[in-house]
C-alpha cells in the first residue's frame, strides 16, 4: 500500500478545514469515545427531531489526521439525514467513504468517529430541567 495515498487532497481538506467542528446549539444526543491505543478522542453532538432526523450534527476531538478527517466526512454526510440511515451505514461503508486505503491499525482511527456516531444516535443527553431538546451537555 502506498502511504502517500492516505494523505490525499480530500483527506487533508477535511483535516485542515473540517465540516462542523464544534458544539450543537440544541444537543439532544451525544457520545464521546477514544481509541485507547493511541489516545485519539472524538465527541459528537446531535440534535435529533422527533421524526428521527439529524437537525444538527457536530463533532470535536483530538487526534490524527485520519480520525479527525473521517469525523468531518461522516458528519458532513449525515447532517440532515435520519437515524435509520445512520444505523444502516456499516463500518465497510465508512472505510469506503474515507476513500484512501488503510492498514488495519489505521482503520481503527477511521472507524472511531463511526463508532461514536452509532452510539450517539442512541444516547439521549439527560434532559435539563424539563423537555428534551435543550442545551444540556457540559
Amino acid at each position: 500500500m502506498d502511504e502517500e495515498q492516505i494523505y490525499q487532497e480530500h483527506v487533508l481538506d477535511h483535516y485542515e478545514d473540517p465540516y462542523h467542528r464544534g458544539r450543537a446549539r440544541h444537543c439532544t444526543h451525544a457520545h464521546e469515545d477514544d481509541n485507547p491505543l493511541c489516545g485519539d478522542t472524538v465527541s459528537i453532538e446531535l440534535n435529533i427531531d422527533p421524526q428521527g432526523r439529524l437537525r444538527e450534527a457536530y463533532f470535536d476531538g483530538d487526534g490524527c489526521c485520519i480520525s479527525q478527517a473521517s469525523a468531518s466526512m461522516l458528519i458532513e454526510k449525515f447532517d440532515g439525514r435520519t437515524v435509520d440511515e445512520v444505523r444502516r451505514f456499516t463500518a465497510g461503508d465508512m472505510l469506503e467513504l474515507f476513500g484512501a486505503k488503510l492498514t488495519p491499525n489505521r482503520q481503527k482511527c477511521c472507524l472511531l468517529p463511526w463508532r461514536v456516531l452509532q452510539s450517539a444516535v442512541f444516547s439521549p443527553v439527560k434532559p435539563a430541567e424539563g423537555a428534551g431538546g435543550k442545551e444540556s451537555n457540559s
Partner: protein
Amino acid sequence: MTDATCSPPSLDPQTIRGDFPILSKVLHGGVPLVYLDNAATAQRPRQVIQAIVETYEQHYANVHRGIHWLSDQTTDLYEQSREKVRALVNAPTPAEIIFTHGATSSINLVARSWGDANVRRGDEILLTEMEHHSNLVPWRQLAERTGAIVRHVPVTEQGTLDIEAFNALLSEKTRLVAVTAVSNVLGTINPIGEIIAKAHQAGACVLVDGAQSVPHLKIDVQALNADFLAFSGHKMMGPSGVGVLYGRRELLESMPPFLGGGSMIRRVTLDGFEPADLPAKFEAGTPPIVSAIGLGAAIDYLNQVGLDAVTRHEQDLTRYAHEVLGELGELRILGPAPEEKSAIVSFVFHGNRPHAHDVAQLLDRNGVAIRAGHHCAMPLHKRFGVNATARASFYLYNTRQEIDLLARSLQQVRQVFRRRT
C-alpha cells in the same frame, strides 16, 4: 563478526551493522530500513540468532529435569546465561537472578509476592509520574488488594524528577519506592543512587525498573544497593519472552513463591508443598529456556562491543539528534538536555499538528521506523499536555546519517501539510 574485540575507545556502527541481518532490509520497493524504535525493542545480531538456532538444533531439552545428556547440556547453557546476567549487573550470586518473561512479569512478581507479604493498609508506595504502565499498574493493583496508598513524585517541566518533592513524599509510611532508571519517553536518567540511599534511610525498599537502562548504561546493583532490579531481554538484543528480576537474597528468601507449579518446589504432598531454593523458587514451570540462552549471547555481544562504548556512541547520537531536530525549528523535544538523558528523543510538532501518528506514517514512507503514541506512559503525556508523541530511540548500530534522514523526512512531513495553508 565485529572486530571490536579489543575494546576500542569508540565503536564503529558500520562494522556492527554487518552483524544485524534485519538492518540490510529494503522496504517499499527501494528504501533501506532506518530502525529508530529501539526503546520498544532492539534488533538482534547474527550471534544471538545463531545461539538460538544452535540451541534448538544441538542442545535442546528441558532444564533441571532429565537424567540424560541433552538435558544436562541445556541446563548448563541456561545456568551459564544466568551467570552472564549476574556479572552484567554485578549481583553477588547467580541465585539472586530470576529468569522471568520480561520486565513486566518481574515487577508483577515483586508486587504479588513481596507486596502481598509486606504491604498493609495505610502503607505508602512511592512511584513517579514518569513510570511506564508496567511500573504503575501492578502497584495500583497491590494498593487495591491491600488498602495501601500510592503516591507519585512529580516530573519537572524539564522532564526530571522533582527531588525536593521526592524528599517530602518519602516518610516512615513509605514501604516501597518503585522508579525507572531511565524514562522510556523522556530519556531522563534518574539519580537512582541518591533515591535508593534516601529510601533506605526512610526504611523503604526500592525496585528499579531497568528496562531502558540495562541495555545502554552500566549498572551495579551492589554499588547502588538496589533491592530489586527488573529488565527485559528483548530491549538488549536478546530474544523476546525472557526478562530478569534481580533481588537481594534476604528479600527473595523471605518472599513467598509467586507462581506455583513444577520446578519451584522441593517436595509436594497431597496436603502441601515445600518451595525450592533460589532461584528455582520463582521459576515455576518450564522457563523461557532458549530465550534465556539467547539473552546470554546478547550479553556476550554487548560485552564484546563494550557497554561503555555503546553509551558513548548513543550520547553522540542523542546530542546530534537534538541538534538537527532543533534546527528544524518546528519541534518541541520533551525531556532534559542530551547530557542528562539516554538514547531517546521524543517530540511533537508545535501545536501537535501534524499529529504523531501521521508523522510516523509518513516517516515510514522513507523506511524510518519510530514509535508514535503514549508509549505506555499515559500519565506522563497528560503531565506534558499531549496525548501522543513521536519517539526516536537509538542503539549501538544507529548512525548520524540515519538521524539526518530522520530530519529530512520530518521536513517532508511538514511539507505534506504545509502546502495547504
